[in-house]
């Protein structure tokens, strides 16, 4: 990916908020504070970073998370890669199913898929790519990646 913005973050959940804000401020095209940027992209990026640090890198402070962001052809693409062993995204249960509603976890990937236009993983499962189209006038909840 020919990225316009690259960040290398330590595995520290306290850094997530600042990293997301940094991307929102520095990324070309992100200055458009549309609802799709402030809700959909922000939530998606936050959840991807959180998953990478908590589950991918397993809280290991010696491991890092790489963030690459590209704005091209009317879409913003963010790839988040951790140094973990990866996981099977197809094995994550639906958190909105009645039997899962009272579980404290499992909503991060679901929110990414609901709010972004495309969510895809590499074969290893340790790198997620998020795509949000930036068409003017698109409502915040249009789109959503297929599960």
């Amino acid at each position, binding site marked *: 990916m020919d990225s316009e913005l690259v960040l290398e973050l330590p595995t520290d959940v306290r850094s*997530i908020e600042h990293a997301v804000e940094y991307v929102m401020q520095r990324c070309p095209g992100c200055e458009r504070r549309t609802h799709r940027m402030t809700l959909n992209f922000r*939530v998606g990026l936050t959840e991807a970073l*959180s998953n990478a640090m908590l589950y991918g890198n397993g809280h290991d402070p010696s491991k890092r998370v790489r963030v690459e962001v590209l704005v091209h052809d009317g879409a913003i693409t963010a790839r988040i890669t951790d140094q973990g062993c990866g996981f099977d995204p197809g094995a994550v249960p639906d958190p*909105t199913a009645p039997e899962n*509603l*009272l*579980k404290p976890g499992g*909503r991060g990937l679901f929110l990414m898929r609901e709010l972004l236009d495309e969510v895809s993983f590499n074969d290893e499962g340790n790198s997620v790519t998020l795509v949000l189209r930036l068409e003017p006038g698109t409502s*915040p909840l249009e789109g959503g990646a297929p599960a």
Partner: protein
Amino acid sequence: MSFQVSKNGDVTLVEVEGQLIVGNRQELKQKVLEQLENGDRKFVIDFSDTGYIDSSGLGVLVSLSKKIREQGGELRLSRLNEDLRTLFELTKLDTLFQIADTKEQALEGF
């Protein structure tokens, strides 16, 4: 980011200022559980000044609601902005919590 805890009669009100996210969720959990251990059973968490809740924050609310219910109490939420309401609706957590438009409404109803 901070959590202001106050008492309104027998209801414990927690106001979330800033964000409720993976980095500070344990602080909220600890504050509410302390009050629960002290005997409080009625809780309102108000989001008037909250910008964002991530999935970890949603998870803490679910976990607290469960613990409070196990002790015979209840957790209510108030004043979710449009974005927060969207997150609750997408995750169907709006079906799990009683959500009031204002903290006054949430407190009055208890």
